[in-house]
């Protein structure tokens, strides 16, 4: 195996950044690739070189094998690191790299292929003495055969796409009478998603945990395991929180799993970083082989944190032909690491991806917390790629410490722009089953059958926000006018200082808030209702603290100008809190809002742009009027339906004449 000095990183986002850093650690030059959507991305800036490879759509850029190989050749890169996702487990791509004389940083194409098809992978596992979930992985895909196998396996059972992954193409059957229709749907899904309708059947595990083993193999026949990870916290079969080691795992079972993973890797001649995934039936205490991922995993950092082994660096070293220079016995698992995936998504709305610009971005800076991020302030979150932006990995001496640290790190992750899942992740960390380390893969759906909802901000939360804003003030100097607060002549008796703030929520609702008092003693009144009465109130950076009936209270806030986010609150509510409620501009009201568009001046109607019954949106031009040799467009000031058109083109109108009638429509 030949060496290389320059590596093309065929990926984007946090993993591209992570791999650039690994290259740098080995004094390898890095080449980033980017699509139109990523021209200003962080990985492009950090790499030594960057090559544009196509439009935003992944199919025509990050999935375009030829474009990637061409980029490597043009920049003189000797190797391609595929990262995860995209082409990382594509045997054809690995072969194409080899054919082009490029080192593919990963296992050999044959190994990828052997583990790529699930049926074949399971057969190889069984041959290596690794137990699989009872099931059918045969080539006979007839309904009759599948029904017979299903009867053998028993219900509940799972139908999966043989070429699938990530939960797509999976279908649970509780009753065999539903099998035929389920098979039909599963085949269609499999064909459309993967171009391969082959299905497999498996026993459905009632108390499943997702346990996986990190493997490193080299080109010299050596295989090491780097202990296990627990990735049981999943939503829609996608991992969101991972940890190493696995909590509450029977030591015997743990050893069985580690041994099995090494056995399989040795059997197939595994020669890079990979992960052997198992499902552990927590009731029976048995582990079954699920699949092998022939690439670096998203969650690899937790293993790095507990073993001290840099997996990305070893991927590169192995690809360059180096031997693994540590024995299995030299490896140990120290402390605990937990990772949370920060994604631009709304967990309260079916994890809907969120897009937009990160107008501000601040990562937590805490000892024992690693941040792997692909974004920065100003980054644009586009709809083209995975919604994961960054990973927080907390390490502690034990699980409880790591969990607390991760919670703190999440609370100290401050972003403005698209909504992130940090509050949701914080809530997950606090679920009793997770706290005890006894959670199964059904944790989220069982904890929140109706879907997760952030706690609704209460008046007390709003009052805290106002108080923090009040204490932050807007100091424009340090004279008495700035320092004395809401000083009043009557404050020594019945008439204390009183500040009026206006709190506007995301829906635009404005609430008036009075803050009475000074020098630490404050009362907050919302819309006339006293809500909060505190003493010793102060604001230290991002922390509001005060004393009230509940003792010493601390509330985390993030202030950006007039906008305040209650970072300590699960819903992460953001309010605009200003000295004025915001004034509607005159001219934006009236007019069509009253249902009638009238001529503002005498003139001639040049064109009528709408017809009766037509839906119009706010700002849409309705009529073009000519007056004093000037054309002017008359627009709808709000959405509505045209209920009448009183004029037609060519009509002369006087000021005040009715032109178009509208029925106003409730705005969303």
């Amino acid at each position, binding site marked *: 195996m030949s060496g290389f000095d320059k590596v093309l990183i065929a990926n984007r986002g946090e993993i591209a950044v992570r791999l650039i850093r690994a290259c740098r650690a080995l004094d390898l030059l890095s080449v980033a690739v980017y699509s139109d959507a990523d021209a200003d991305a962080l990985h492009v800036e950090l790499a030594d070189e960057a090559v544009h490879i196509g439009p935003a759509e992944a199919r025509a850029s990050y999935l375009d094998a030829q474009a990637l190989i061409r980029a490597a050749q043009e920049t003189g890169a000797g190797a391609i690191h595929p990262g995860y996702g995209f082409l990382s487990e594509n045997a054809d791509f690995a072969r194409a790299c080899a054919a082009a004389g490029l080192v593919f940083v990963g296992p050999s194409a044959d190994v990828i292929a052997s583990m790529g098809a699930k049926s074949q992978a399971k057969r190889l596992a069984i041959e290596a003495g690794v137990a699989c979930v009872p099931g059918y992985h045969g080539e006979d895909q007839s309904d009759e055969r599948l029904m017979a196998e299903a009867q053998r396996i028993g219900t509940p059972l799972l139908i999966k796409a043989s070429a699938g992954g990530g939960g797509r193409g999976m279908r649970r059957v509780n009753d065999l009478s539903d099998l035929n229709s389920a098979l039909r749907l599963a085949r269609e899904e499999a064909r459309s998603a993967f171009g391969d309708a082959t299905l497999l059947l498996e026993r459905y595990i009632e108390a499943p945990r997702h346990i996986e083993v990190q493997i490193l193999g080299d080109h010299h026949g050596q295989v090491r395991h780097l202990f296990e990870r627990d990735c049981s916290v999943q939503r829609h079969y996608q991992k969101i929180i991972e940890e190493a080691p696995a909590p509450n795992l029977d030591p015997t079972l743990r050893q069985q799993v580690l041994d099995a993973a090494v056995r399989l890797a040795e059997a197939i001649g595994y020669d890079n970083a990979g992960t052997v995934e198992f499902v552990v039936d927590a009731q029976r205490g048995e582990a079954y082989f699920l699949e092998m991922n022939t690439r670096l995993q998203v969650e690899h950092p937790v293993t790095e944190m507990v073993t001290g082994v840099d997996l990305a660096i070893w991927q590169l070293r192995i690809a360059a032909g180096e031997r693994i220079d540590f024995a299995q016995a030299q490896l140990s698992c120290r402390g605990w690491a937990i990772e949370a995936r920060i994604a631009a998504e709304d967990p309260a709305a079916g994890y809907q991806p969120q897009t937009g610009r990160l107008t501000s971005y601040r990562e937590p800076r805490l000892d024992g917390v690693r941040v792997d991020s692909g974004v920065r302030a100003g980054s644009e979150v586009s709809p083209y790629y995975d919604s994961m932006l960054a990973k927080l990995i907390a390490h502690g001496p034990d699980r409880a410490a790591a969990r607390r640290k991760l919670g703190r790190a999440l609370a100290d992750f401050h972003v403005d722009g698209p909504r992130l899942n940090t509050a949701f992740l914080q809530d997950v960390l606090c679920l009793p089953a997770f706290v005890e380390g006894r959670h199964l893969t059904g944790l989220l759906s069982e904890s929140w059958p109706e879907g997760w909802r952030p706690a609704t901000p209460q008046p007390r939360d709003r009052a805290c926000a106002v108080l923090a804003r009040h204490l932050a003030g*807007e100091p424009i100097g340090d*004279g008495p006018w700035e320092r*004395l607060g809401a000083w009043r002549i*009557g404050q020594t008796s019945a008439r204390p200082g009183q*500040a009026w703030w206006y709190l506007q929520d995301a829906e635009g609702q404005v609430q008036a808030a009075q*803050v009475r008092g000074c020098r630490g003693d404050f009362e907050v009144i919302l819309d006339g209702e006293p809500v909060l009465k505190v003493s010793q109130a102060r604001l230290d950076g991002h922390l509001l603290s005060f004393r009230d009936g509940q003792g010493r209270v601390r509330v985390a806030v993030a202030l950006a100008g007039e906008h305040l986010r209650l970072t300590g609150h699960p819903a992460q509510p953001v309010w605009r809190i200003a000295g004025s409620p915001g004034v509607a501009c005159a001219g934006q009201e009236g007019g069509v809002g009253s249902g009638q568009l009238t001529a503002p001046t005498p003139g001639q109607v040049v064109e009528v742009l709408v017809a009766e019954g037509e839906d119009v949106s706010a700002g849409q031009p309705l009529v073009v009027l000519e007056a004093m040799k000037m054309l002017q467009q008359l627009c709808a000031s709000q959405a509505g339906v045209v209920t009448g058109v009183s004029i037609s083109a060519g009509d002369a109108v006087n000021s005040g004449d009715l032109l178009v009638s509208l029925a106003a429509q409730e705005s969303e």
Partner: protein
Amino acid sequence: MSVWSTRIDTRAAAFQDNAEHYARLLSQLRERRDRAMQGGHEKLRERHHERGKILARDRIDRLVDPGTPFLELSTLAAYGQYGGEVHSAGVVTGIGMVSGTPCVIIANDATVKGGSYYHETVKKHVRAQEIAGQQRLPCLYLVDCGGGYLPEQDRVFPDRDHFGNGFWRQCRMSAAGLPQISAVFGGCTAGGAYIPALSDQVIMVEGNARIHLGGPSIVKIAVNETIDGESLGGAAMHTRESGVSDHMVGSEAEALALLRELVAELNLPAREPALAAPAAAPLYDPEELGGVVSQDRRVPYDCREVIARLVDGSAMVEFKPEWGDSLVCATARIHGMPVGILGNNGALFSASALKGAHFIALCEQRRIPLLFLQNISGYMVGSEAERGGISKHSAKMVYAVANAQVPKLTVVIGGSYGAGNYGMCGRGFRPDFLFAWPTAEIATMSPDIATNVMLELRRTNLKLPPPSQQELDEIEKAVRGQYAEQTDPYYATSRLWDDGLIEPSQTRDVLGLCLALVGTVPHNDRHTPVYRM
């Protein structure tokens, strides 16, 4: 600077007695101030709210930048007059930060006699405008008034400093580049109509605001036209037809928000930066001031003990500490800003007067604002004093005060008698601000001396037969009664002889707020009037 080492023992009986006495004065002040600041009768306030209106001081709270001071002036104006019903003279005036700009705010209180202008209302309104002109501050008028109080028209309308003066000042200030902006919340009839009409910009609140030279009843009499108030002078008519108003808003809250935005757009020349050092609290608690000041006017106290409780770090540099010691002169800082302080430690002798004149000249040369702490029985009398030229020496101090160009602040702590009042920058000498403590007494002379003078005049009156003892007793009773009434600080503040009664412990903050204004007046050489079109 040397830090003052106090000689006050706060556990001593005399201190405790003084403190208790002052506590009683303070509770009386607070009680009277609270009542005045409530505004009109409860029923009137309720009706005000029912009309969607906000009380005058609540309007100000919403107008000023949240979490910043409002320096209210002459809270007890008209106190004890007109049956004690015209609280704060029906108008709230003061200085507050609006969109980062210090502004004079003049807000009518419609719950007090409909916001009508009494003699003191006019005086308070004009005084606030005078401050705006001197300190170069924009004027914001929160208008809700029924014009002049007709039964008092002779004390409200005709004279130089009466109602017309307010309009004259509006025009002159606008020309001098000081924005005049009105938000109209209620009726503005006749004279009242000119407050918005003479403003650079006007906001009207739909439904409640009215501007008309003559209301519906006058219109009916004068031109026999029957018309309702809204059509005659409502916000919609004035904003969309007459152009008297520039903005119409749906609520008072919106009017105040818009006013904040208009102020944010003023593009005023920047104020001079205050020469402020970091401020340090006094070493000795200002709350102790009540115990420092003797309740018996004849028992002296050291005014340096007062200064030590007002200035940063209780530190000062005394000028001529061993000469003319009945006048303490010292430079110090209040809220970080330099100030030259003159305080009385007894009657003023020739030496004290010369020392004062010299010190004023020093501060003038160094552009240090002056602070006069008055507790003065007057300049020394007697043959020794006269032979020593007390008249010409005291005149030098008066002359220096009158001509000093630096800003001047006065606090009347105790007595303010006779020519001492002049030399120590009384109201007649136009200090930028003048406040009084509840222990203040302002008069030509003390009641004792005044009684003696009046009795002597009667005895020596040749046109009348010699007085009986009964007549002399009656004269003494009448004079003492008159002086007791008229030297009462509430009598003085009711008549706007000061800018308000303040508590001793508030004094430092009040002076700090004032110094930050008087020390930052921008230069102006432009004349830019705005005419309402």
